[in-house]
């Protein structure tokens, strides 16, 4: 019924014809036939009330019939009621008569003043964008609405003319003058405003842009009872429907690149828009450095996003294959600018996993094992001794550098290729940092890691670790690092001093690290 209402009111012309239908129907009634109650009704306030009154006006005796039923009508009323129904099949051309009979028929109908055109009951005016029944509108409200509808119709006509003109121009290989396009843009904005006002339809910026006319968006469809529904903004819903369309048609163009940017700004976690964007960049052979530049801003705005760094990795691979692999100087430059940016982002978020991952990838890919990297970890560790990400990166820089390590050596495996001097340097570094903060987990782990790589036993740092506790088991027992006790329990165990080893674990469990009581007890049970 909403459609019917729209059809009736879409143009001024149809509006007129609706009105005249009412008027004719009323004119065809003789005063005698008008139900007395209808004439005494208060003047209608709303559109729906007027429809109801006109219904009674064009359906004589209907109200009486509703009130008292057929048996309750007077004989005259019965006659009118029956006749006015009997004439309908012929009036509606459901029964065809010969010309002569037809003339007779109409003569009779006119003579008796029977209503051959009648309004139907419960006319539905439909609802507006707020779900309000238009029937409850006051006349001035309907007038305003009808004017807007007429205006929209007029604009639609002009809009269609634009489309035809453009098609004609394009068939001759020409484009319309910019003036026309600008007018059309303005027109669409007006149409969008009207559609929003009238129907709550929200054509977004893409629908209003003639550049996107050839794309039929594929809106996301889902039932009312779909799960995890999100209150999308109209902008997002529109952008995604265009994205779906261009991805399906495999279009790789500058406008699509802009579209991906638009979608990414709202949903950076979209798992294929990034892959699509990369495809566009490579298909159009766009500048990788420009793309990286753009990506920098996105990364700074979405620190925790993973896709951004995956995209960056794809760009790096692409750039490497096309340029960097054959241009050492360019590779160095690129590595430098990348690490600069990484440092900038790590300054904001010192333990960002994706950033550190990418940093490793970059160094391996471009073979960028510079002293600068070691210095970076050093200064970050100095800023925060407990920054385990920086410690972890240092371990990578030292023990994965192909110039002094074995490729593919496991993280806890002895690597004979690592020079003793480097091991000494790293052990000294860890010990120095442990002394600054004896309870710091990261530095102790690093120390153990270095020893494993160097094939050196834990006992080689036994003396060092022993300085962090004294008088174990005695009244005046003192411990400044629980990690030292843990390490020494292993040293004693290896040296066959089981009781001493046990004592370390008992003290950890009962006194110095009771939060891990269960763990230390398990370690105790493993001691033999």
């Amino acid at each position, binding site marked *: 019924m909403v459609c019917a209402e729209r059809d009736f009111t879409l143009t001024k012309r149809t509006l007129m014809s609706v009105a005249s239908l009412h008027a004719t129907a009323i004119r065809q009634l003789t005063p005698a036939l008008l139900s007395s109650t209808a004439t005494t009704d208060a003047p209608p306030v709303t559109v729906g009330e007027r429809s109801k009154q006109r219904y009674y006006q064009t359906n004589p005796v209907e109200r009486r019939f509703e009130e008292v039923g057929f048996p309750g009508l007077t004989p005259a009323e019965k006659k009118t009621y029956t006749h006015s129904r009997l004439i309908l099949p012929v009036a509606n051309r459901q029964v065809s008569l010969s010309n002569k009979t037809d003339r007779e028929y109409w003569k009779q109908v006119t003579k008796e003043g029977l209503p051959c055109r009648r309004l139907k009951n419960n006319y539905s005016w439909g609802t507006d964008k707020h779900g309000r029944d238009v029937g409850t509108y006051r006349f001035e409200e309907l007038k305003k609405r009808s004017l807007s509808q007429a205006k929209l119709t007029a604009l639609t006509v002009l809009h269609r003319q634009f489309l035809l003109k453009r098609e004609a121009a394009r068939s001759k290989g020409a484009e319309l003058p910019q003036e026309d396009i600008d007018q059309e843009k303005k027109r669409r904005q007006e149409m969008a405003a009207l559609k929003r006002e009238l129907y709550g339809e929200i054509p977004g910026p893409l629908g209003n842009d003639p550049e996107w006319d050839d794309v039929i968006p594929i809106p996301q469809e889902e039932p009312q009872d779909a799960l995890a529904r999100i209150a999308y903004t109209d902008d997002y819903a529109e952008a995604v429907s265009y994205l779906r369309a261009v991805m399906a048609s495999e279009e790789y163009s500058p406008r699509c690149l802009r579209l991906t940017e638009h979608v990414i700004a709202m949903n950076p976690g979209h*798992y294929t828009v990034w892959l699509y964007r990369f495809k566009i960049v490579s298909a159009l052979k766009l500048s990788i450095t420009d793309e990286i530049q753009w990506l920098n801003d996105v990364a700074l705005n979405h620190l925790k996003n993973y896709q951004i760094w995956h995209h960056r990795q794809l760009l790096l691979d692409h750039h490497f294959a096309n340029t960097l692999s054959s241009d050492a100087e360019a590779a160095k430059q690129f590595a430098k600018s990348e690490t600069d940016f990484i440092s900038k982002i790590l300054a904001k978020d010192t333990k960002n996993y994706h950033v550190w991952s990418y940093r490793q990838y970059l160094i391996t890919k471009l073979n960028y094992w510079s002293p600068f990297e070691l210095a970076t970890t050093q200064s970050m560790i100095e800023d925060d001794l407990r920054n385990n990400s920086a410690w972890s990166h240092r371990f990578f820089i030292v023990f994965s550098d192909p110039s002094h390590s074995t490729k593919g050596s496991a993280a806890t495996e002895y690597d004979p290729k690592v020079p003793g001097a480097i091991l000494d340097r790293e052990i000294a570094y860890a010990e120095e940092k442990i002394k600054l903060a004896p309870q710091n987990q990261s530095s102790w782990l690093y120390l*153990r890691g270095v020893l494993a790589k160097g094939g050196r036993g834990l006992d080689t740092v036994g003396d060092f670790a022993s300085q962090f506790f004294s008088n174990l088991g005695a009244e005046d027992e003192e411990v400044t690092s629980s990690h030292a006790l843990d390490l020494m329990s292993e040293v004693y165990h290896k040296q066959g001093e089981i009781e001493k080893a046990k004592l370390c674990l008992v003290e950890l469990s009962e006194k110095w690290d009771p939060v891990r009581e269960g763990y230390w007890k398990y370690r105790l049970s493993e001691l033999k």
Partner: protein
Amino acid sequence: MSAPTLDKAKHVKFWQRCHKSFLPTAYTASDSTRLTFAFFIISALDILSVPLTAEDRAAVRTWVLSLQHPDGGFCGSPAHALAGENASKGSANIAATFFALILLGMAAETEEEQRSAFAGVDRKAVLLWLKKLQRSDGSFGQVLWEGEPTGGRDTRHSYLASSIRWMLRGSVERGDENWVEDIDVEKMTEYIRGLQTYDGGIAESSTEESHAGYAYCAISALSMLDRNSGTPANAKGAMDSGIADRAMLLKFLAHRQFKYLSNTEAIASEEGSTENYLEAKLGDLSLGGERAYTGFNGRWNKRADTCYTWWACSMFRLLDADYNYDAVPTGNYLLDITQHVIGGFGKAVGEPPDIYHSYLGLATVGLIGGYDLKEVDAGLCCSTDTVRKIDVAREGMLESLKKQSEQRSGWEAEDFWGKAANVVKVM
């Protein structure tokens, strides 16, 4: 001081709100993982024993199946799924597929529904798609893009792959008509084995920083390979061959917990002053009647976060090493520190509840037990009740496949045509 409680009614309200109304616009940034969110919502209601109506359950099935990709797998959200002739242009995602299958199991109620929970899933297509997602090094991608697995090489995808395999593969033997070429389980195990880091943890690769989330996924991937795999109890399972150094791993895990200083942490959090957790004074035993809290982090020295109680505690369960932590102060942390007054859990002290942390917080409370929640399975991160249903669904799926192939061979069998010929003659 009485023990902290789980405000079950508030949690029910929180999840019902998520179920029945639109998620706020801010969730647009997670639009690609709506299936995951749907799982969190429905599964939370399941753990809370809130029954779904028949209509709700039907809606879950219809919606989930509407996201199935014709070439195998499920799309992450309606934004990634296309209808009709464009359907193959959508993109299936490994996480979405995992959550879709569990949701189908969860939405089944009667015995018959459970047996046919996987009806409508193109088992063969999913398994073949899964195989294509595996790389030659044994790792898995999350999406097929131009036929190639893409995305990180991390253990999340291994875990999802091994769980999907468990749910759909069943015990079909090679040579059987319904046998589908399998992923390379040995390579997968070997790949995971190679991820242990110098500190005993597990990372995206052995040179990166160890991380409890990746560790959980690695261990869980192995455990799902071993789950009713039919291998004899004394045989060496994936759990044994996939963990290079169990002792070091346990040490890494045991150190994910620390004594959480509720007062000072709350202040530090307000000031946003530190990236690290606040260390208790060594040997400070003066609890003085104060309630004890244990917080968990994902990496060394980092601050406590609700979700790591799940990743760590469930990993202890999978490793059969629950003795490593104390359930009481762990529960205290969740219920007193991150449980929110409007229901749900926040990431850390003072944070508003979000779907992800609310779910994992609730799942951990269920895992620990004792709070009137359904029992939670450490491997699939849903109620054991749902896991049981999935088990029934697996059996039902294989049975119906068997029936179908019997029917096919029945039609082809000579005997049938012989009989049919006789019928024709008689007529």
